[in-house]
């Protein structure tokens, strides 16, 4: 009875939280003016940029490490970072980078050409658990392979070697020209990390589960461990379930950060993040839910910042699962998803229906792709045509404990899609997994059913970063082998004539939407929310914003 009552009270308490929050919102902000608390949507998976691909990890790593080049704040324009200038020769195969002088890593070791080569060689020499498209996702998709071919993966490495000429010139030789190489180097995944620290803390230890989930084995980039770069902030501490703290790097080579300390707290629940902002527990958070924007705008202490739409939400169709290798069945899926309904209802006017795997702003967007409007009857007819008896069972996965810019409430999207598929001759078997650490790895390894909900936020303004990342190589996530498509995208990647390149990507987009490796459904304009007295946060299309420009006023 006692216990029953206690838990019962807890249930009632949940129902009453709404009222409590409104009252608490009047209490004053608890932050001091040099510490910012940011509400993250989940814990990072690791702080070693080379082994992550999710936004919550990259957000933190981006403050700690820097690449040879970076993006100008708020744009996708490439600017010098650790390299001050660069020159390509030998038809785009040899790149020599002049490095910034007098830069040291946060552990005191010098940043020089040898350190650059150590990083590049580390990625290239990845083996075992690291040489996998779910662990070193970015490296594999941009550089196409490792020194030793990884098990079950295609291998055509772009990288040949790196040579240190003196202390301040690094010469990187590629096996073939590549038009998006320089842009790709701005990725957080290719940030320069201290070779000394990586060796000392065992950054190259780790294991891969059979479902494709990577677990670091050393003390590098893990909770309670270290992560060392050259960035304006350095890692102070990270405790799962509590907080992650970064502090100002006072020996930073550039303009030093205004804030002395930034604390990241993982609050997976959207409503809880909003409440934390209203009570002043946090000063800002990402992934504001569309339906909360009106509430925030009404509050005189809060403000909303908009990010340009630079993402795509899509449903993966894994062709390794039968009968989805049949185009008719994939078409049935495309016709059976009520995309317009979902976008119109769940994105509060901030989303548009996606008809291809890249947003319209990116070069190479095609206006002539095949479109699939929701049509349950047509879907059923296609399934029958494929010789199947209805309903066709399909395992459909969705992530829990997360919200993404392109997918604010995965469970809701899932339920709407599941209902529309059920009406279209399918029988959905629902499956879920927590976003970190299982879901993303499973999706990338192709162990997340025949269909799953996922999406992508662009990292830099290049079409290869969207459809190239997805479809240039054979990948576990999609489970198909389409040499024609691979060849076209690889040709487009090295094409240096911009007009020709755009035409190739348009062709590729048309080809993709006929081939239907998945069904894109939404591009969204994500929103961030801050206390009004926080200034200097510049929303970026690639969703990675430096905290070094952020400060408090008033």
């Amino acid at each position, binding site marked *: *009875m006692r*216990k029953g009552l206690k838990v019962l009270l807890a249930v009632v308490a949940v*129902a009453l*939280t709404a009222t409590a929050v409104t009252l608490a919102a009047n209490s004053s902000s608890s932050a001091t003016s040099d510490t910012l608390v940011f509400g993250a949507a989940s814990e990072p998976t690791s702080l070693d940029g080379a082994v992550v691909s999710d936004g919550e990890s990259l957000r933190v790593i981006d403050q700690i490490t820097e690449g040879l080049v970076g993006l100008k704040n708020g744009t996708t324009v490439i600017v010098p970072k650790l390299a001050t200038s660069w020159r390509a020769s030998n038809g785009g195969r040899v790149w020599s980078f002049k490095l910034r002088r007098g830069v040291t890593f946060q552990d005191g070791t010098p940043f020089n050409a040898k350190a650059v080569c150590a990083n590049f060689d580390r990625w290239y020499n990845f083996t075992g658990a690291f040489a996998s498209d779910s662990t070193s996702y970015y490296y594999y998709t941009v550089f196409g392979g490792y020194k030793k071919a990884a098990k079950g993966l295609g291998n055509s490495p772009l990288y040949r070697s790196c040579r240190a000429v003196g202390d301040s010139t690094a010469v990187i030789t590629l096996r073939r020209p590549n038009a998006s190489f320089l842009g790709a180097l701005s990725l957080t995944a290719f940030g320069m990390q201290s070779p000394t620290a990586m060796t000392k803390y065992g950054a190259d230890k780790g294991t891969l589960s059979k479902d494709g989930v990577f677990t670091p084995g050393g003390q590098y980039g893990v909770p309670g461990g270290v992560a060392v770069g050259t960035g304006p902030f350095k890692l102070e501490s990270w405790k799962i379930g509590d907080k992650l703290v970064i502090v100002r790097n006072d020996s930073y080579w550039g303009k030093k950060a205004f804030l002395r300390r930034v604390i990241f707290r993982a609050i997976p*629940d959207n409503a809880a993040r909003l409440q934390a902002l209203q009570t002043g527990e946090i000063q800002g958070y990402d992934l504001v839910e569309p339906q909360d924007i009106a509430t925030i705008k009404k509050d005189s202490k809060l403000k909303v910042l908009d990010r340009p739409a630079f993402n795509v939400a899509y449903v993966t169709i894994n062709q390794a699962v039968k009968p989805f290798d049949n185009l008719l069945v994939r078409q049935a899926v495309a016709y059976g998803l009520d995309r317009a309904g979902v976008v119109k209802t769940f994105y509060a006017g901030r989303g548009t229906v996606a008809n291809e795997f890249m947003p319209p702003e990116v070069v190479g967007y095609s206006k002539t792709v095949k479109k699939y409007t929701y049509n349950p009857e047509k879907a059923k007819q296609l399934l029958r045509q494929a010789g199947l008896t209805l309903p066709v069972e399909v395992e459909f996965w969705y992530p829990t404990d997360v919200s993404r810019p392109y997918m604010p409430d995965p469970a809701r999207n899932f339920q709407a899609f*599941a209902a529309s598929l059920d009406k279209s001759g399918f029988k959905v078997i*629902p499956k879920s997994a927590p976003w970190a650490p299982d879901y993303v790895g499973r999706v990338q390894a192709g162990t997340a059913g025949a269909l799953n909900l996922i999406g992508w936020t662009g990292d830099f303004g290049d079409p290869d970063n969207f459809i190239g990342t997805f479809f240039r190589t054979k990948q576990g996530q999609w489970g198909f082998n389409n040499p024609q498509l691979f060849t076209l995208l690889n040709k487009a990647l090295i094409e240096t004539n911009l007009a020709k390149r755009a035409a190739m990507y348009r062709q590729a987009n048309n080809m993709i939407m006929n081939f239907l490796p998945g069904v894109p459904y939404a591009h969204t304009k994500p929103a961030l929310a801050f206390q009004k007295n926080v200034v200097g946060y510049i929303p970026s299309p690639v969703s990675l914003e430096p905290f070094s420009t952020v400060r408090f006023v008033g």
Partner: protein
Amino acid sequence: MSVAEVEASELELEPASGGLWRDALQRLRRSPAAIVGLVMIATLVVVALFAPWIAPYSPTEQNLEAIAGGCCPGPSREHLLGLDDLGRDELSRLIYGARYSLLIGVVAVAIGLTMGLLLGAMAGYFRRADSPIMRLMDIMLAIPGFLMAIGIVALFGEGGLLQVMIAIGVVNIPIFTRLMRGSIIAQRDNDYVLAARSVGVPSRKILGSHIVPNAISPVIVAATLALATAIIDAAGLGFLGLGPQDPATPEWGTMLTNTVRYLQTAPFLAIFPGIAIVIAVMGFNLIGDALREALDPKLRGRT
């Protein structure tokens, strides 16, 4: 009066009361709390059994058009308790949800009860089995129940109705085991046991047909109360996302989770399932409490 006379007069009183269970029933009938609890649970059972006839809509029928204007329209004439975040009728979902909550409660308690009775009876009657069984129960009791339930569900790899029922059932085992053991120990040295043994009735039969029926009444009370806790635990596991894999399942705890993000815009979506849970739990608690009082030998005759 001599002792014998006192005993004789007490014996004369006994038949007038007409047996333990009839007595208890009479006391229950006179307890307003029991009546209220009974009505609550009876309503719930009827609602659960006849859900397809009572519910005005299907619990999974979505109406995206209806919520295109924002989440979520509150109670109206067509939808008495409003619509949820996918445009489903909240009342219909609550009605169907009663099935899940009752099912989870009954099955989970049945699992715990069966295992608990077996283990408890063995521990209580066979002295050699006592120590090992009870130490095992101590270990289980050392882990907070809800935490253990979460652990068990995690052990299965994924959440689900069956997993939730098993987890809650297992958590309940030590409660019933301890109770049963205590109750058996109190009975096992009674004269009627000795009598049975002396005429050569086998141990198994003594335990099964003589001791257990006499020792079971506290366990029945505990089971009623455990039903309430099981429903709460199921809702709690559902709330933590360990409930059914299909988020469309109208399980009350899952309904709470799915709508907690609309607390600010549509608090009724969290309040209604909350009230449903409160009614179910309160009903079982009231009955359980009344039953305990009714069956308590110390309170006999104090009706």
